[in-house]
């Protein structure tokens, strides 16, 4: 290591660097203090707790257990199953949202009467608060008085009302439907924005070259929408993997834990059984996984898009 640069800098007539940074630091400080207190400190504390057996049911003893909580976690079938359920929820809901979102965006990108009206209206499912959307769907799926039963009965698909949410796989898929209704508009907005940046002359040139509509879609539209796809995929994957609210409201993790995804399991472990050490280890591993995804996301966002 050489000290030369520092020496040469010192010879230059210059204000002390601190002077230049003073303003920057004082502007950022309020945010940093807040974020340090409500995010950084809790994260570190959480990490620390994860090495102890910290049960609020036994407040008199908090033995250090090293990696014990982490080892327990990977031996715990229920925890691993909850990770699997979160993965199922994420894979199905995100693929449905991307496919439907793309179809709706392509549709709304056409010119027709009522297009502007539908484009405005589509913000509705997204703007309805998550918990309101959840109670709304719970009410629609209701076993005794639900609208889903009413419609299926009137159309002759069922002979009597069905308790939909008591069937494990059905319950999970119905929760996914509720999530798709609430989240697809977000995907539509991102795709519509991406579609509007594709220059029209590209399509005209393709037409002159004799390319059909389908060909133009696969050769022009899809490749140019790649960045939008990546953004949507990563954001929706991260959000779906930590899904909690609608599961809490619609099924409460039931029936027989069939909809207990990983954040719900950690919530129960921490705040119902008060196993803070185990909960801390679980949430740390889940965070790590989501952080890895977020690094991918940031890398992708920073990547330049080439036309």
């Amino acid at each position, binding site marked *: 290591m050489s000290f030369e640069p520092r020496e040469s800098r010192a010879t230059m007539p210059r204000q002390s660097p601190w002077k230049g*940074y003073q*303003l*920057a630091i004082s*502007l*950022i400080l*309020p*945010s940093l203090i*807040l*974020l340090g*207190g*409500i*995010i*950084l400190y*809790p*994260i570190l*504390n*959480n990490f620390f*707790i994860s090495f102890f057996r910290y049960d609020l049911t036994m407040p008199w003893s908090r033995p250090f257990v090293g990696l014990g909580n982490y080892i327990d976690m990977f031996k715990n079938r229920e925890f691993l199953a909850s990770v699997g359920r979160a993965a199922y929820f994420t894979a199905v809901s995100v693929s449905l949202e991307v496919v439907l979102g793309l179809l709706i965006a392509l549709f709304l990108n*056409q010119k*027709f009467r*009522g297009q502007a009206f*539908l484009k405005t*209206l*589509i*913000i*509705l*499912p997204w*703007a*309805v*608060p*998550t*918990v*309101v959307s959840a*109670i*709304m769907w719970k009410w629609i799926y209701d076993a005794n*008085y639900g609208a889903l*039963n009413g*419609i299926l*009965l009137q159309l002759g698909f069922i002979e009597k009302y069905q308790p939909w949410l008591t069937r494990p796989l059905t319950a999970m898929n119905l929760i996914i439907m509720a999530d798709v*209704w609430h989240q697809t508009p*977000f995907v539509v*907005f991102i795709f519509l924005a991406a579609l509007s940046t594709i220059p029209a002359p590209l399509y005209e040139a393709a037409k002159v070259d004799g390319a059909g509509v389908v060909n133009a879609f696969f050769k022009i539209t899809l490749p140019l929408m790649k960045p939008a796809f990546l*953004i949507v995929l990563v*954001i929706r994957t*991260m959000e779906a993997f930590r899904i*909690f*609210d609608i599961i*809490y409201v619609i099924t409460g993790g039931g029936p027989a834990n069939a909809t207990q995804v990983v954040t719900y399991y*950690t919530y129960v472990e*921490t*705040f119902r059984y008060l196993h803070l050490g185990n*909960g801390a280890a679980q*949430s740390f591993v*889940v*965070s790590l996984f*989501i*952080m890895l*995804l*977020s690094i991918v*996301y940031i890398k992708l966002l920073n990547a330049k898009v080439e036309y």
Partner: protein
Amino acid sequence: MNRPGQNMNRQSRRKARNAMRSAAIFVAGLALFIAIVAPYAWLVISSISHASELTSVPPHWIPHRPTLEKFIQMFTPDIRGISETAAMFKYAMLNSAIVAIFVTIITLIAASLAAYAFARLTFPGRDQLLLGIVAVRMLPAISIMIALYVTLTKLGLLDTKLGLVLLYLSFTLPFAIWIMTGFFKTIPVELEEAARIDGASRLGALFHIVLPLSAPGLVSTGIFVFMASWDEFFYPLIFTSTYLAKPVPVAITEFAGRHAIDYPAMAAGGVLASIPPLVLAFIFQRYIISGLTAGGVKG
């Protein structure tokens, strides 16, 4: 030379294709309209129905005797004979509004100062710090919940609106800093330099040039922050227990009592809770969409 018959044939074929296209668009448009509106419309209809009309098999899709009873009850002071949740719902609305407004104001002030530094000033570690702040936004809330619970208990902030304001800042602030840094970068530096030649300080330039020019960005960030605060469920579920602080999303889950659910009241609560975000969304749709596509997330 074109024979007239061939010409007509081509014309009628084009006509038929156009008719097919309009029919397909009509069907698709109608399906989309129903998918968007029908579930929410059923919530609204349920809120103005009598319980007996909803519990008949099949339910009355159009209520025979619509009523605003549930809404009126919720806003009648000292009313007897309705559930505690329904009677206290107005206070939950007030809690949500107070918390969301304070979170929005604090976030906009702190974030615009920080975002200005990230967008305009150079200092060591700037880009890494910004990336760190963004990365932190992706954390699931549960990972900071345990330590925060212990801290807020010590500070006596459990079940208080101030406690909720602090908690909500943990997800609104990183989001706002990220999105506003982007907005500030789009404002030409030359304008600011001109002002500074005329004798304005850095802060003067921020308040007189940058902030007014990025008003659309401020509006869209503010609306996001407000909506995300209004929407938040997980923090208040754990950190509130009474109507001193309990906000709408938590209150609404409590209509489902131990014995029976008052479906029309629950639906009325849902409709009331969705009015503020829906109004904001439809008025400021353009700002929201530009913010979504710039920053990527709701919160």
